[in-house]
């Protein structure tokens, strides 16, 4: 569904992404792995159309990134992206105005599952709660491709389990999910493909089970080997 070749992004004198080439297939869950500063966020921003590549191409369903791809791709950034005066309820309204595929019923259901309250003010939420809100708002879209940047970062273990459940519930044969993380342990069983990014390059990429079999190692062990 999405193909990138030789992606590169240079900011003034800093290279954020050096060379990433990969194909995302429908119905799969990908882990985008790499330590902080390896280029994961810049890569996701390029796919979602927020950052223009310096070099290389991205094709979504055979077309360049543009109006259609932005409709179909749901990107969740690491930064909180709500105004402080908003409530959980108005975040839903705000999203509905922005995205055609936003499903209000699904949002209400997810907010309930995350044990959030519609009347809660966004700026009063703890960091764990606002992480759950971000996930609920993003996953309430019926998108074709979800890009989740560090959805498990800085969140307690109970909330993590909830987020993983939500992600698995959203997974279907029609949707593709990319999760960037450096918490590999948590996702080892959840993913079916991995992309290891090191210094802005995709170093290993493929089916998780195949990689485990070929190398005789779990993804966690491989992570330690590549970045250790």
């Amino acid at each position, binding site marked *: 569904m999405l193909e990138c070749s030789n992606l590169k992004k240079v900011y003034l004198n800093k290279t954020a992404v050096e060379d990433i080439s990969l194909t995302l297939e429908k119905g799969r869950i990908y882990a985008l792995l790499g330590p902080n500063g390896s280029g994961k966020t810049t890569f996701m921003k390029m796919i979602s159309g927020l950052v223009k590549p310096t070099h290389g191409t991205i094709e979504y369903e055979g077309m360049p990134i543009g109006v259609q791809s932005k409709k179909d791709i749901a990107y969740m950034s690491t930064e909180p992206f709500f105004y402080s005066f908003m409530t959980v309820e108005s975040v839903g309204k705000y999203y509905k105005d922005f995205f055609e595929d936003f499903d209000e019923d699904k949002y209400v259901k997810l907010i309930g599952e995350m044990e959030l309250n519609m009347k809660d003010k966004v700026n009063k939420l703890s960091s764990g709660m606002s992480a759950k809100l971000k996930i609920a708002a993003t996953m309430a879209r019926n998108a074709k491709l979800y890009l989740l940047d560090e959805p498990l970062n800085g969140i307690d273990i109970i909330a993590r389990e909830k987020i993983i*459940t939500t992600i698995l*519930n959203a*997974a*279907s044969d029609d949707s593709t999910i990319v999760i960037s993380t450096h918490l590999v342990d948590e996702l*080892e*069983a*959840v993913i*079916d493909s991995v992309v290891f990014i090191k210094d802005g390059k995709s170093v290993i990429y493929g089916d998780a089970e195949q990689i485990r079999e070929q190398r005789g190692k*779990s993804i966690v062990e491989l992570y330690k080997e590549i970045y250790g």
Partner: protein
Amino acid sequence: MEFDNNIPIYVQVINMIKKDIIQGKLPMGAKLPSTRELAVQYHINPNTAGRIYKEMEMQNICYTKRGLGTFVTEDSEVFKAMKEDMAEDLVNSFIKEMKDLGFSKEDLLSVVSVEYDKES
């Protein structure tokens, strides 16, 4: 869900389901969760969940009724064989570990006998 990184995840989940069947938590003929429910329940990838049922079907542990879902076998022979297989695996790995510790057959049997009585 905690998984052992050295054993494929689908194998670990199959073993957990087999254990549930043997213990009667999943009775013979019972309907199993859908692949999606299985994925959510064990926090595993949906494609892995699909593979689990495929493998279990190949081993005749379960079968699929088109449009209705996947069910635990009603064949008592399969059930018996599954129980024996699991027991054999456990015993074999136990024997191997005990041999590594230098236990003879007699020592091993007497240790088992003493410990078993303590437990019950």
